[in-house]
C-alpha cells in the first residue's frame, strides 16, 4: 500500500516463500511438504476443499500455528531467524482479515480501525480519526457505521469493517480469509471490485483464501490449489483449466465452473476508479 520512489526492478519478486512446510495437530498431518510463492503486487487466490487446511496455512504463515518443519520467508526474512523486534516490524507490514472478522466486540468500528494505529504509530487523535474514517469510507461502509459496535453490523458490514482494520497501517501485504463468503452475489462482486481497486491504487499484494469461483475469475492474478497437504496446481486460470488433477478438474470444470469459463471475458472488464 506504499508507492515506491523508483518503480520496481521489473522482475516479480517473491513476498512470501514457503518451502517444504509440514504442519499437524497431534497425529493428524495437515500440510505435507507444501511449497508456495506469492509475488509482489499480485492477487493470489488460494483454493481447496473445506477442511483441507487453507486457514491453517494462513495461520501458520502468520505465526499463529506452529509448524513441524519447513521454511517460511516473508519479505525475504526467514521467520525462524527474526527476533521479536524484527517480527513486530514485519507484522506492521501486513494486514489480516480473519474468516470470522475477529473485530474487537467492545470497540466501535472506528476504534477497531484505530487499534493497530494506536499500537504502532505516534499520531494525533485528530489524524487517527480522519484516517480511520477514510479507511471506513474506502471499504464502502456508510459513515454512520463508524460509531457502531460489531454486534450492530450485518455480516457483509463486518467483512468490510474487518478489511478496513486490515488496511489500517497501510500494509504492503494483506491476508484475506474467505472475504466474500456469506455475501450476496452483488455484494460479493462489489467486494471483489473493492479489493481489486484497492490493490491497484495502493499497490497491495493480496493473499486471498476463497471458495468463490466468481472472485477467482474476477480478480485473481494467480491461483494455487491445495489438496492432500500440498499445492497441487499453481498458475493462471488457463493453467487451472488445463490441469489434470481430479480435484482441480472437478472444481474448475464442474457445472458452476464451466459457465464462468464461458462468460469470463466480459467479467474481466476493469473495475471503475474509486
Amino acid at each position, binding site marked *: 500500500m*506504499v508507492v515506491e520512489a523508483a518503480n520496481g526492478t521489473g522482475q516479480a519478486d517473491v513476498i512470501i516463500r514457503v518451502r517444504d512446510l509440514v504442519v499437524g495437530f497431534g497425529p493428524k498431518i495437515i500440510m505435507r511438504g507444501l511449497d508456495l510463492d506469492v509475488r509482489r503486487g499480485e492477487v493470489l487466490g488460494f483454493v481447496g476443499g473445506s477442511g483441507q487446511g487453507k486457514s491453517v496455512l494462513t495461520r501458520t504463515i502468520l505465526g499463529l500455528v506452529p509448524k513441524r518443519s519447513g521454511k517460511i520467508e516473508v519479505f525475504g526474512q526467514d521467520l525462524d531467524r527474526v527476533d521479536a523486534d524484527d517480527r513486530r516490524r514485519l507484522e506492521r507490514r501486513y494486514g489480516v482479515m480473519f474468516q470470522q472478522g475477529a473485530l474487537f466486540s467492545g470497540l466501535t468500528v472506528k476504534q477497531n480501525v484505530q487499534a493497530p494505529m494506536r499500537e504502532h504509530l505516534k499520531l494525533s487523535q485528530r*489524524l487517527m480519526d480522519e484516517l480511520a474514517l*477514510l479507511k471506513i469510507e*474506502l471499504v464502502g461502509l456508510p459513515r454512520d457505521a463508524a460509531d457502531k*459496535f460489531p*454486534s450492530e453490523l450485518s455480516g457483509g458490514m463486518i467483512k468490510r469493517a474487518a478489511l478496513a482494520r486490515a488496511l489500517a*497501517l*497501510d500494509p504492503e501485504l494483506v491476508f484475506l480469509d474467505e472475504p466474500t463468503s456469506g455475501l450476496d452475489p452483488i455484494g460479493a462482486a462489489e467486494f471483489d471490485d473493492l479489493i481489486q481497486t484497492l490493490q491497484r491504487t495502493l*499497490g497491495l499484494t493480496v493473499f486471498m483464501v476463497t471458495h468463490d469461483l466468481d472472485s477467482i475469475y474476477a480478480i485473481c492474478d494467480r491461483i494455487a490449489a491445495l489438496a492432500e497437504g500440498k499445492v497441487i496446481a499453481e498458475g493462471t486460470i488457463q493453467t487451472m483449466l488445463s490441469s489434470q488433477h481430479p480435484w482441480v478438474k472437478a472444481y474448475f470444470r464442474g457445472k458452476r465452473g464451466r459457465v464462468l469459463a464461458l462468460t469470463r471475458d466480459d467479467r474481466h472488464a476493469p473495475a471503475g476508479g474509486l
Partner: protein
Amino acid sequence: MPAKPGFAVERAGDETRLNLGGDWTLESGAEMERSSDGLIGAAAGARAAVIDLARVGRMDTGGAWLIDRARTILEAAGVQSRIENARPAQSTLLEAAGWRDFEAPKPRRGHPLLDMLTDVGASVVNAWRDLVHGVGFLGESVVALLRALGRPHLFRMTSLIYHLESFGLRSVPIILLINFLVGCIVAQQGIFQLRYFGAETFAVNMIGILILREMGVLLTSIMIAGRSGSAITAEIGSMKMREEIDALKVMGLSPMDVLIVPRLLALILALPLLTFLADMAGIFGGLVVSWGYAGLSPDAFLDRLKTAIGFNTFMVGLIKAPFMALVIGLIGAMEGLAVQGSAESLGRQVTSSVVKAIFMVIVVDGLFAMFFASIEY
C-alpha cells in the same frame, strides 16, 4: 529507516513553491503531521502555492491525506494551491485518499452536577427495574421448575447430573477446607475470650450455634456464588453472545427449560448437601482446636454440644440453603441473559452477578434471622 518527511520553501514573486522530500508514510507519523502543518504556515499569505512532489520517496494513504489536507486548508484560506510532479501512482493515491470533510463529532458535555443527578436517577430507576424484572423472572422459573417436576420423563437428567457434579462435587474440597479453618478460628477466639470468665467450655455452645445457624450456610453460599454463580453467568452470557440462545428458541426449545432449570435444580440440590458438609467440617475444626488448645477431649466436646444445641439449630442453617441456591441461580441466569454483544459486557455481567448474589445472600440471611427470631425457632 524511512527518510524524514520534510519540505523546502522557494519564493518566486507571490507564488510559493513547497518542495516536499523524504518518505511521507505513517511510520514517521508525528513528524509528518508537523511537516504538513508547516506547509500551511509556510504558504499562508501567498497568492498561490505549488506543492511539488518530485523528490518525495515513498508515500501512503496517511501521507496523501495530510498533503491533500494541507492543500485544502490553503485553498480555504484564499491561497490558490495545486500539486505538481506527482507520479501516476501518487496521483491515484491522492485521489483515493484525498481530503474529504469529516465533521468532527461534538463531544456532548452537560453540567457536571446535572450529569451526576442524571446518573443517580438512572441508577435508582435501574435498581427498581432490576427488582421488578427479578420478581418476574423468579415467577417464570418457579413455574418452569414445577412444570419440570411434573413431567419427570421430559426432564434433562444428563444436564442435571453434569451440573450437580460441577457445582456440588467439585466444590467439596474447598468448602470443607474453609469451613474447617473458620471452625478452628471461631473455637480459638471463643476459648481465648471466655477463658477470662473461666467459661471455656461455653465456647462449644458458641461454636455449635454459630456454625450451624449461620457460618456454615453463609460461607457455602458465598463460595458457591463466586464459584458457580459466575460460571452460570459466563456460560449463559457467552451463549447469548454467539446467538446460541436464539438458536435454541427457534428450535422451539425454551432456554428456561434447557439451560436454566437444570442449573437451578442442581444448585438447589447441591447447596443443602454442601451446607451439611460445611457444618460437619466447621464443628470438626472446633473440636480439634478445643482438644489441642483447651484440652477438652472429643467425648467431652460432643457431650457438651449435645446439650447446647437442638435439632432445630441444625435445621435453621439447612432450611436456608435451598433459598440461597435459588437466589444465586436466578441472579446468575438473569445476568447471563443480560449480556450484550461485546466481551466487556460479559465481564461486567459476571462481576455484577457475583456482587449481587453475595449481597442478596446476606440480605436473605438477615430476613431469615428475623423470621426465625419472631417464630422463636
